[in-house]
């Protein structure tokens, strides 16, 4: 495992590169796209576990923080969906250069699924895109994350600044980002020619099923439900991490089977 900064200042991004641990390395590398906000905090451990399992299956893996998030450059009030999609593309290019892989697979969780699908849609080197509990319609996702919450003693976990920035469980979401997200619809995003798309869900939700049954031109789409308890869109006082083991194993099995 190798923590790195890549890209160019002042927009350099933090990532962790995991080399394969199997005797035979695969020629496709996997880029992991995190969710946003508290969901990112809650999923960090699961992504590390998934990266380790992928390396045991022979994959080169890069997980990275988008601009304005995690350890990457920038502040959260500077971000945009287009920037994050560009970041995912830059991560794919970095992985190809670092690991000398020819092809890419993206795995994205929640908003990261939308970022992954958008980044993949403009490339011609993508084998697989895995959309895990995806944020399907940006407007629905926004409504969900902007819902009022309080902590165990009744203190509000929502806030707002005078410039219109909303605090979503401690993470700023500017009016510009809300506008980006409101216009996003995963169902309208195409897939690279000859690629595969897996929609994998921890809960049986109509939007996941519909996306998983959607016919996408030139791509094979599959839907898999791996029932798992827990909700990404929650937060507690001690940073509890959600690690849906069977679901992570299903993603690794899918990529191992579909990619040489």
């Amino acid at each position: 495992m190798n923590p790195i900064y890549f890209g160019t200042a002042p927009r350099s991004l933090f990532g962790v590169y995991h080399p394969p641990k199997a005797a035979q390395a695969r020629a496709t590398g996997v880029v992991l796209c995190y969710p946003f906000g508290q969901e990112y905090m809650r999923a960090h451990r699961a992504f590390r576990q998934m990266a380790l399992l992928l390396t045991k299956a022979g994959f080169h893996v890069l997980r990275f923080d988008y601009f304005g998030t995690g350890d990457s450059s920038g502040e959260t009030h500077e971000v945009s969906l287009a920037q994050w999609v560009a970041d995912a593309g830059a991560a794919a290019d970095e992985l190809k250069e670092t690991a000398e892989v020819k092809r890419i697979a993206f795995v994205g969780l929640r908003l990261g699924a939308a970022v992954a699908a958008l980044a993949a849609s403009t490339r011609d080197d993508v084998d697989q895109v895995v959309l895990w509990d995806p944020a399907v319609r940006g407007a629905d996702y926004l409504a969900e994350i902007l819902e009022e919450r309080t902590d165990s003693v009744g203190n509000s976990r929502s806030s707002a600044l005078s410039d219109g920035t909303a605090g979503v469980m401690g993470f700023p979401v500017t009016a510009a980002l809300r506008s980006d997200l409101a216009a996003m619809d995963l169902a309208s995003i195409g897939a690279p020619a000859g690629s595969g798309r897996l929609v994998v869900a921890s809960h049986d939700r109509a939007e996941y099923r519909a996306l998983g049954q959607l016919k996408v031109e030139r791509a094979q789409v599959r839907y898999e439900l791996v029932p798992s308890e827990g909700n990404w869109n929650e937060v507690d006082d001690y940073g509890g991490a959600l690690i849906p083991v069977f679901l992570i194993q299903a993603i690794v099995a899918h990529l191992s089977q579909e990619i040489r």
Partner: protein
Amino acid sequence: MNVVQHGREKAVRFGTSASLVGVMTEARAGTADTDRPAVLFLNSGILHRVGSCRMHVQLARALSAVGFHALRFDYSGIGDSDQRRDSLSFEESAVVETREAMDYLAKTKGVKKFILMGLCSGADMAHETAVADPRVTGLIMLDAWAYKTLAFQVRHYGPKLLELDRWKNSIGIRWRKLRGTYVSHRSALPRGDGVEYEVPKYVRVFPPRERVAKDLRGFVERGIAMHYIWTGGLVEYNHKGQHRGTFSHVKFGDLLVEDHVRDADHILTGLQHQRYVLHQVVAWATRVFGAGTASSVPAVDAAAPAQPPRAAVRTA
């Protein structure tokens, strides 16, 4: 909103018994001084090094802008750091690893003194490391151990004695417990096959106050500057001055700054609370350790209120 002009950031690895991962934010170009302490950010629970609501990143960059080197890193088994191969408890290994982080900064940056910053379990480990290592010269503590005093009890129970609903609720719970029909909401943690819900192995137990008093006297004798902030999320603390009141025999003088952000939750989700804490910490560090002026951090100063925010604003 302005962007803080901070120093270069780079990923680092250090440690002897485990490979620890961190991010160093160097003091902004032209502001570094090896006589000035560097700031170390310690994990809260199992949140990785960016800190709750990315506060460690925000603080590291704001402190870098006024001349401090800052290092946020993951303890073994947390975030991106490896597991240790020995059998040390978390309380033991956290102190060892914080000292290794200090050794790393001493070696790479020539820094001789350190400020430790932590929230909750991070504050606990900052305290323990300060006891163990003479290089600690400052502490920034969020929701550190707190002890109930008479003044606490008066504030806590006084208003409740006048609320009829509380009496009814309390009698109702006791009655349901007697009948065996009481269900605690705490039994609702997610469970299920194949899903792991990972929580910190560290169980927070406040040490006896006599022991803490002895430690604090030692801190004062060593001249350690202390900035302690409590949120409304720690039920053991309910008014500014409680810490001084608890340890009234410790002659803190100007070494202690005590603050209470009553409307903030434990993990500082309120953006206005984050700004307040950011502003207070940078202003304190600048004043105490003689760094650049806080006005060189416009994004922090411009919007920060002079007093703790009184109420969270609901999202529109």
